[in-house]
């Protein structure tokens, strides 16, 4: 049977097991939409802006582990999606983006809605393709899904000119497997390295596990729990790793880094053996590299060799999948005699007494931390929580103790404001039976507000927790500390009435101005199982995120709430971002 390129494309997506596509139509993809309309295996989610499509597919992928699929038109369609693609790329999220292109003969002629899609996306994708002939459609889709989901995952863009979607050919069998001589993602960790690591682990006196997003994306939570508990080691997790190890567990020291807990950062600073598992020594984690973990030896487990010794030189590098490497370590350490680390634990427990996440309530204002604690209580710690970017993101990470992987969804690498709402929508589509909350702020939410409309159309009930303090809080915090309180452009004036706004989109809006109203409002919101509820919660505008390692500082230089004054000490602060 002869099929056109668009029909072949849709057929391939079905064969890849795609159930949902997030997209927006336009001239160059009309044939693809025509083919999509003629079937009912794949549901198309019509977003209101292509960035929302990319974030939606991203949230979907993070929630259920399946690759997110995006379909956009040429020109502005793909450029609008770029922020979402870059977001997925920074956090290694599997995604396949199909973008329409002007017909092949018009490429390079500055045609209507033409951009060089592969050129523009080159530096923010794992790989991209420009299809040049209809015979390449099936093999390209196969390769795209293979590349996006294997090794270190990431987004792959397929740019497909309109004439190729129109051309016809006999449909060949969709390839079952794909062989690429230049891409071999499956690496088995070296046994020798595993043995060396096990030796170091067994003999260390002040060990710590520092695990990251690689344990979530690599589905290594089970092995991570088993190994950590077997060894009885303290574990700290990055912003991207939260939930892979339960946040409520007694071995968990919470998050580390710029806004990490006192015990996590101090333990890193004093450790003699740091085991990095699927984490990449990001600058938000390490602070000043010269003062980072001065007495530690590093074991670095990562699937991507280029991460190893990029920022911090690894003493024992292990290239491999977190899941397999952790299992190998469990086996290797099974009968090994371990060093007694009870002294190390007493030291850690001393640090814990500092209670670095304590905050002082003030009468008459709602503390943002209280909101997250209450959200945790009302959802019994079981909700999927997405966030936008800024102070609220840090508070959600600090005060909602995630016990499961894929429960916490945020833009960690790129720090994309506007991510939270469409990601929550995507997560709800992926996990319709779960409660989904989007923790956001009045700044971030306004970057992707239009998706409220999509959420009504596709009935994706999400609870929006808007921590409204009238400021771009993280910007304001830095200005307070490092710019002598010159609050340039961080005040959000002329805010909309979020309640009316939510209502006009067909959702429920609840304003919360008093702490006593907070819990009833949250309970009410989660009772509305099939409605999106927008909780506009007025919070303390002067609250700052603590602890904080000022830029250029070491893990032992943390500033604590109520104890330290935050003032700019030297010029290096200004070079920080």
């Amino acid at each position, binding site marked *: 049977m002869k099929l056109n390129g668009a029909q072949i494309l849709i057929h391939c997506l079905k064969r890849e097991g795609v159930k949902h596509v997030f997209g927006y139509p336009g001239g160059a993809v009309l044939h693809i939409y025509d083919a999509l309309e003629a079937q009912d295996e794949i549901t198309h989610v019509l977003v209101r802006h292509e960035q929302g499509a990319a974030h939606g597919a991203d949230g979907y992928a993070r929630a259920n582990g399946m690759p997110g699929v995006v379909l956009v038109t040429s020109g502005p369609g793909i450029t609008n999606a770029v922020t979402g693609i870059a977001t997925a790329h920074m956090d290694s999220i599997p995604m396949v983006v199909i973008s329409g292109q002007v017909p092949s003969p018009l490429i390079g002629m500055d045609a209507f809605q033409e951009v060089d899609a592969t*050129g523009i996306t*080159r530096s923010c994708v794992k790989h991209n393709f*420009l299809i040049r002939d209809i015979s390449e459609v099936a093999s390209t889709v196969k390769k795209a899904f293979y590349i996006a989901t294997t090794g270190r995952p990431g987004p792959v863009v397929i740019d497909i000119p309109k004439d190729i979607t129109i051309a016809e050919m006999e449909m060949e069998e969709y390839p079952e497997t794909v062989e690429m001589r*230049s*891409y071999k993602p499956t690496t088995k960790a070296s046994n020798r390295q595993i043995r060396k690591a096990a030796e170091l682990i067994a003999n260390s006196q002040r060990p710590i596990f520092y695990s990251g997003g690689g344990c979530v994306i690599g589905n290594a939570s089970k092995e991570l729990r088993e190994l950590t508990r077997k060894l009885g080691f303290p574990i700290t997790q990055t912003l991207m790793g939260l939930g892979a190890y339960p946040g409520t567990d007694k071995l968990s020291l919470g998050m580390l880094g710029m806004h990490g807990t006192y015990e996590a950062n101090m333990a890193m600073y004093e450790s003699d053996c740091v085991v990095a598992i699927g984490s990449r020594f990001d600058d938000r984690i390490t602070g000043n590299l010269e003062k980072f973990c001065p007495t530690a030896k590093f074991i670095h487990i990562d699937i991507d*060799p*280029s991460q190893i*010794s990029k920022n911090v*030189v690894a003493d024992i590098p292990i290239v491999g999948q977190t899941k397999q490497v952790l299992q190998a370590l469990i086996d290797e350490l099974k009968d090994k005699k371990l060093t007694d680390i009870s002294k190390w634990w007493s030291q850690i427990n001393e640090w814990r007494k500092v209670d670095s996440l304590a905050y002082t309530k003030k009468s008459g204002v709602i503390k943002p931390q209280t909101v997250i604690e209450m959200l945790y209580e009302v959802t019994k710690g079981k909700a999927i929580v997405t966030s936008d970017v800024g102070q609220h993101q840090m508070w959600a990470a600090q005060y909602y103790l995630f016990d499961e992987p894929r429960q916490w969804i945020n833009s960690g690498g790129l720090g994309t404001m506007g991510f939270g709402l469409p990601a929550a929508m995507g997560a709800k589509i992926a996990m319709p039976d779960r409660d989904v909350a989007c923790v956001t702020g009045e700044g971030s939410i306004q970057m992707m507000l239009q998706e409220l409309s999509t959420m009504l159309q596709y009935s994706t009930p999400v609870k929006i927790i808007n921590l409204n303090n009238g400021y771009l809080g993280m910007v304001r915090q830095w200005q307070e500390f490092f710019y002598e309180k010159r609050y340039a452009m961080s005040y959000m004036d002329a805010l909309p009435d979020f309640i009316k706004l939510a209502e006009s989109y067909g959702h429920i809006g609840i304003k919360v101005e008093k702490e006593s109203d907070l819990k009833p409002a949250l309970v009410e919101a989660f009772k509305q199982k099939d409605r999106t509820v927008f909780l506009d919660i007025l919070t303390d505008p002067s609250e700052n995120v603590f602890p904080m390692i000022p830029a250029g500082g070491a893990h032992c230089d943390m500033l604590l709430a109520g104890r330290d004054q935050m003032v700019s000490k030297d010029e290096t602060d200004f070079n920080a971002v």
Partner: protein
Amino acid sequence: MRHIISVILENEAGALSRVSGLFTQRGFNIESLTVAQTNDVNLSRMTIVSSGSDRVLEQIVKQLNKLIEVVKVSDLTSQDHVERELMLVKISSVLKDNVDLKELVEIFGCKVVDVTEKIYTIEVSGKTKKINAFLDAFDPANIIEVSRTGVTGISRGKK
């Protein structure tokens, strides 16, 4: 330190810009870059001359390996290798100093490939140092135009 990195990659549209883009994106420098098809029509060899510390070089090699189309990356400078560069240079035949052009051509083992009324075009090949030395032998005023290919190289022996 100067490194010659040899990259074998799939001969596909966009592969060259992926490699050159990687260098700008990550702040690695490129002194020269040459590329052409190999004996396998599906593969190209790219030879890149870059400089940096061992750690920078390690990152360059790893990042290149990460590109989907790259089949093999090797640092030629770390092994026995042969390297060559080709230069075409136009020299004024009305030499302003006492250089004997024919003698130089002989010493450097190069060829005069074109002669016009006032200009000799000379083909020089060899290591970069030799090419530089040839140019240094002339008064800059006599050098009219230079076109160099950049370095290409290959490892010695069986592999």
